[in-house]
């Protein structure tokens, strides 16, 4: 036969596809569908809330936590949390969902030696203590006080107790509306609606995932009717009206390392902020969809302040500040390396060049350093390279999936934060307070943190809160939200009227 291995069953392309199949085209093939790796975008976009489900779910729009496989949760001391589980839920293999499964899921992801991504991402080194109170009640105890433990738990996708605790599982069994049928490596993933689903049945009987790394190809698949939903598009992909943009939680910023001239002078760091014309960047490069940013988290995240002003674009002020610094003895002509990851997001190359140009106008010397992911990571995360031949200015794209600024500031702003170049004791203190706060206090505390960074620390020059774009064919209807990039809930997709 003259066909690619296993291709016979691959979903047929063409515009006359049977309408009971929902066809999604992604940027890349998921490396795995292992539930405990679901915080990886490419994994999560397939499984989260589609194949597997968490105990608790965060509403991407309101930011509120909502019940999913747990119906209610409470804690007296913010340390020990009790969760009531939903009854009558069945896994795809037919077994009943009980407390044992919930305990096993948490234990496997957080306490085991598996090295789950989600563990590193939301839980850190400390283990959780787990107790099965009865068939439908679980007790979770953190090592220390943790007011957002339910939020953390919302990252865990539930798998049955039988799932191996010593090895990762590529094809999970979940409780979600869709059941994984088969995965043809390299080509497609097929799922079908799970008949015993506890909730409302999805509209499409079948789902099919494919992946193409070229945005224009994904767009073309929508236009030509070969796919119903395409993720990760950009306006240049010629998608036309079928492109639907949505705020995607991602914020672009420049991180300045203050260990070398000229960034050891706060005037220069301020000058950088003045020099960049964020509004016109957003307007011209991003067609006005993105929003100029004043802080690392977008609206919708706890801690985001609507009132924090975007740094004014003032080329003259930037020049003055540079001159001032120069007068004060700072070596303003010292080279700055603008470190950028290739193809991290649409038009990153152009953005970098604009920034380079604008900073040059302000009188600084900027070299552009486009790096592939792995190399870029050595700059992004501690320990930072020390033998750099200039001051580092890293372009970073930060996405806060959790909806709480704690996930941002701990990493980006504390003195020792994994992705923080430097910090100040005062800021550290403010952050610690905010982390421990709850309710409205928490919001206010984080707002303070962001304001303080902008006024006194100036490690970051914020550029924009980004928007994502989905391609949605005429035959389906879907309303994207800020988490659509990480978690594409197929059950929410309906046939177009």
């Amino acid at each position, binding site marked *: 036969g003259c066909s690619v291995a296993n291709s016979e069953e691959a979903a047929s392309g063409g515009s006359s596809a049977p309408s009971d199949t929902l066809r999604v085209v992604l940027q890349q093939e998921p490396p795995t569908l292992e539930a405990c790796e679901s915080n990886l975008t490419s994994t999560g976009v397939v499984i989260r809330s589609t194949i597997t489900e968490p105990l608790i779910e965060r509403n991407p729009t309101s930011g509120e936590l909502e019940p999913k496989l747990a119906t209610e949760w409470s804690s007296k001391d913010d340390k020990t949390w009790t969760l009531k589980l939903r009854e009558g839920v069945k896994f795809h293999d037919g077994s009943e969902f009980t407390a044992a499964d919930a305990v096993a899921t948490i234990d496997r992801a957080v306490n085991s030696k598996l090295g789950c991504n989600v563990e590193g991402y939301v839980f850190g080194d400390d283990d959780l203590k787990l107790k099965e109170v009865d068939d439908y009640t679980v007790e979770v105890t953190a090592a220390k006080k943790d007011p957002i433990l339910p939020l953390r738990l919302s990252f865990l996708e539930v798998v049955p107790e039988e799932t191996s605790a010593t090895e990762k599982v590529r094809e999970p069994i979940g409780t979600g509306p869709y059941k994984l049928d088969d995965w043809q490596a390299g080509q497609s993933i097929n799922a079908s609606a799970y008949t015993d689903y506890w909730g409302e049945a999805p509209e499409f009987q079948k789902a099919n995932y494919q992946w193409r790394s070229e*945005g*224009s190809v994904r767009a073309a698949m929508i236009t030509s009717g070969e796919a119903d939903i395409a993720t990760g598009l*950009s306006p*240049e*992909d*010629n998608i036309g009206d079928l492109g639907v943009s949505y705020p995607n939680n991602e914020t672009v910023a420049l991180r300045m390392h203050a260990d070398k001239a000229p960034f050891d002078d706060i005037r220069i760091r301020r000058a950088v902020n003045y020099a960049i*014309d964020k509004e*016109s*960047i957003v*307007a*011209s*490069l991003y067609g006005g969809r993105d929003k100029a940013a004043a802080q690392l988290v977008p609206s919708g995240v706890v801690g985001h302040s609507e009132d924090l002003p975007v740094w004014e674009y003032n080329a003259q002020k930037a020049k003055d500040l540079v001159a001032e610094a120069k007068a004060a003895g700072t070596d303003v002509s010292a080279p700055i390396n603008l470190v950028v*990851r*290739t*193809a991290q997001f*649409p*038009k990153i*190359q*152009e953005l*970098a*060049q*604009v920034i*380079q*140009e604008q900073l040059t106008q302000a009188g600084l010397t900027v070299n*552009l*350093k*486009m*790096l*592939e992911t792995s*190399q870029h990571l050595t700059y992004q995360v501690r320990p930072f390279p020390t033998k750099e031949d200039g001051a580092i200015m890293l372009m970073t794209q930060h996405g806060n999936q959790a909806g709480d600024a704690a996930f941002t500031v701990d990493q980006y702003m504390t003195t020792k934060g994994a992705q923080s170049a430097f910090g100040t004791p005062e800021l550290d203190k403010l952050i610690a307070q905010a982390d421990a706060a709850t309710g409205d206090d928490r919001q206010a505390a984080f707002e303070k943190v962001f304001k303080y960074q902008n006024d006194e620390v100036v490690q970051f020059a914020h550029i924009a809160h980004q928007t994502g774009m989905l391609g949605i064919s005429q035959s389906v209807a879907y309303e994207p939200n800020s988490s659509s990039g990480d978690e594409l809930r197929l059950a929410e997709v309906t046939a177009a009227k």
Partner: protein
Amino acid sequence: MASLEQAASAAKAAKGKDGRVSMFTMLLRDRFATVAAVFLVLVVLTAIFGPAVMGERATAQNLMFMNKAPFDPANGWLYILGSDSLGRSMLARMVVATQTTLLVAVPAVLVALIVGSLWGVWAGYHRGRREAVSMRIADIIMSFPSLLLAVVVLFVFSPSAANIVLILAITRIPIYLRTARAESAELQSRTFVDAARTFGTKPNAIILRHVIPVVTPTLLTLATLEFCFVMLAESSLSFLGIGIQPPDVSWGLMVAQGRQYLQTAWWLSILPGLAIVLTAVAANVLAAWMRIATDPAQRWRLELDRKSTKAFEKATRQAAKMQAKKGND
């Protein structure tokens, strides 16, 4: 008959005193080669003087003047080739890119050509173990993922034009090595090489005198094909972020970056790509011409000028007709 003589005298007039046609005349005889040569000279001149003339204009951004279509006189001559995604003049950028492009592609091709050819000629001439080992080395380089090499070199060293040249050169050496070896192995068995050996001529001198002149045209033609390959390879390195870095600009980089605009602003990618294609085609046409011009057995194709060839054909036809008439009488 008169026309035959005319043709002969016309042919004579084009020749030097020694009856041999100069290279320049031969170039003019081949119209395609002439056009190609003129084009290449223009490219080289652009590469030399372009950046000095257009340097400023190539970097000036204008975010309000993005992706303007080419060939619109209303935008002024600077934007005759349109503007790019940052509102820079495409014309200026293409002109400035010429230098970088040539500075990467030409040395890369030359280094690979020189190293690979000399090595191959040497291996092919001596044969035996030297040849076997060289071929195995070529095999190794050939089956090695060149991208890995690129990532390593640029990771360990850092992306710079010199390193890009190095990588492109190393990975393309086997092509020349194998070609040169094959030709040289064949040549070393020729009688005139044997003759040189009987004078006690040293191997290197034989290689220099008898082998290299013969293999050069072949290798140069190969090099022109490679020239285009190298420019495209450079563009894919750029795409991975390990090629030429902005604000430097090369045609390859422009092609790679413009590709996402292929459907919304085609000129960003097509124009520099066209420059690559045209340069490569021109180089190839010129190489083909040169191969004929330096081959004593082929040279006549160029030494005959078009006019006399036509006259010849006409005259023979007429003569045949006359003969036929005579025969009928």
